[in-house]
């Protein structure tokens, strides 16, 4: 599934970020491929707020559609 399909409160592991630029940006922020993140808020039709520990990043929907994730719990 993609990050855009996940729901508020779920926890996912980031499997693949297709866009090479955002892959590196995410890696720098500590939410790169292989990391587990919590979905703190999914704004309907809008961005997805992911959190890892105290780091929060708002990911726009069009990008979230290109991020493949695996549901952890």
């Amino acid at each position, binding site marked *: 599934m993609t990050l855009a399909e996940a729901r508020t409160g779920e926890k996912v592991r980031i499997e693949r970020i297709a866009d090479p630029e955002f892959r590196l940006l995410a890696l720098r922020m*500590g939410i790169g491929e292989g990391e587990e993140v919590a979905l703190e808020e999914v704004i309907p039709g809008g961005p997805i707020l992911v959190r890892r520990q105290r780091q929060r990043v708002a990911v726009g929907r069009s990008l979230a559609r290109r991020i493949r994730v695996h549901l952890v719990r």
Partner: protein
Amino acid sequence: MSQCCHSVHARGTGGALPLPPDFIALAGNPNAGKSLLFQRLTGAYAEVSNYPGTTLEITWGRWGSETLVDTPGVYGLSSFNPEEQVARDILLGARRVINVVNATHLERDLFLTQQLIDAGLAIVVALNMMDEAEALGLRIDVEGLSRELGVPVVPIVARTGRGVDRLAEAVSRAAPGRPTPAVIRRLGDLPPAIPRPEALLILEGDPEVAGRWGEEPRPFRDELYRARRERVEGICARVVSLPAQETWGDRLSRLLIRPFPGLPILAGLLWLTYKAVGEGVAGSLVGLLEEGLMQRYYEPLVRDLVGRLVGEESPLFRVLAGEFGVLTMTVTYVVGVILPLVAAFYLVLSILEDTGYLPRIATLLDRVMGAIGLNGKAIIPLILGLGCVTMAVITTRMLSSERERRLATYLLALAVPCSAQLGVVTLLLARAGVGSTLLYALVVLTVFVSAGLLLDALLPGEAPPLFLDLPPLRLPEPRNVLLKTWVRTRHFLTEATPLFALGALVLGVLEVTGILTAVQGWLAPLTEGWLGLPREAATAFVMGFVRRDFGAVGMSTMPLTPAQTVTALATITLFVPCIASTLVLLKERGRAEGALIWLAAVATAFLVGGLVHHSVRLGGAILGAAGAPWVTVLGCAAAVAGAAALSQAVRHRRLGAMERAPEEAAD
């Protein structure tokens, strides 16, 4: 406070800054506390705030016998955007680097730290925000961290100054630390003549740095980033123990970015601001200062003095102390009107910034902004435009694509009023009533949205996706907020006052020579015929070329009906930006494009003003006085709908083209 502090716009390379060869640089992620620490160390002011991209102006100052430079906040040493290029070039030239790290965010912040170490720079880590870390119950093994990194680590609290003395002492022990092993292996790939920092950047594929050394950028960025990330994760796992705990800020943060109650809260805050600034400051304070103090005591005094010196009938008297007197109107306006209004707006903006609310607004509005081809982040320069359009145009550099910078700049020049202007407009609208205020807001918003929709359709490309770091919500720090309000207000006044004086001088001369009356005659078809305003309104437009708010003041001296007020204010709001913004516009966008934007603004202003006037008249004729605005409201709706339909059509065509060339999918 100011003698030690210089500031320049760092465009292009930081190497262009006139710095001594052995300066010390502050480096860190956005919001790590660099500016606050800078202020502590140098006693000088550097902007302190909470959204990514504040420190676009490079500030440096004396710190004892050293020179200290504040750099833009970055998450890594590369060139994804102009800020990163500036930070990269300054850091490449630094003798030592103080790396400011947010203790509550080590997983993120240590990536830059490790990259600085991999670059072989001599660094010391300032482990900032220890107060927050302690409040969260985070435990950090400082010695262990120092051992792992191989550089001195000093826990500090930049807000209170705790630990700053020890940091100062540790700077002399700044050292190159323990690099990521993969970096060392790859370094052999390059000629040893290339200095280590540059070599690292070439390995990580930085085309600019590679070009400077006549090398090809190497393809190891992914590999080295991964290795570095792994090393950082390992270090964090060994030195940090963190309890999961939700703070009040976390809970509030979630409410702020949900459409409900986020949107009502945003609307409520806007309303509060309007009440406080529009009615509180504009209504009472301005009245007190302008009429009570300036017009009653100051102006008669000046008129008397000037009259005695040059004679009451002389043209010089009229230029200095007449209707547009350089010594009377300018001073009354600057002290009595602009000062309180601008200070009030900057106070609100500074509070918004310091709390970390702006990135939340960006997240909340991302979806809406998408409709006009921008992502949510672009709301930040647009909101800052409400403070000062000049400053905001410079801030558009934080946007990641050329297309977005262009779009945001157009909208800023066209439809975003600055604080002075908004203040004067609010003042006049408060007199004209709530209905007029709403109608004015609707018209300006309509132009903003329609222009955005059309530009989005016309400019090739798409809005880049949002990818925005949300700093924690914080209570604003009163000292920061007041200091920032003061520095910005002062900056605004020193920039604007000479322009007012110049404008007043020009007007005074035009009046004395009779040219003004002639101009009013020439423009009568436009002012009286098309806009339905008194012909004296021409004066306001002449003033508006100097500054839009100045133009709005021109309107305030004429007796206008509420409907005329809306027409006049909408026109002057959309009118050309002030001279200072125009200059920045020409600099940022180039002459041809800048001139085009400028002309488009004039045309749009008069077009819209006339449409407002005629639609209100039509409304009055059909529906009677009470129903007069409804035709205008309908017109606004039609304009937005038309623009939306057009942009939709263009978007469909684009989508069709994209389906033929399949998009890169998630897999």
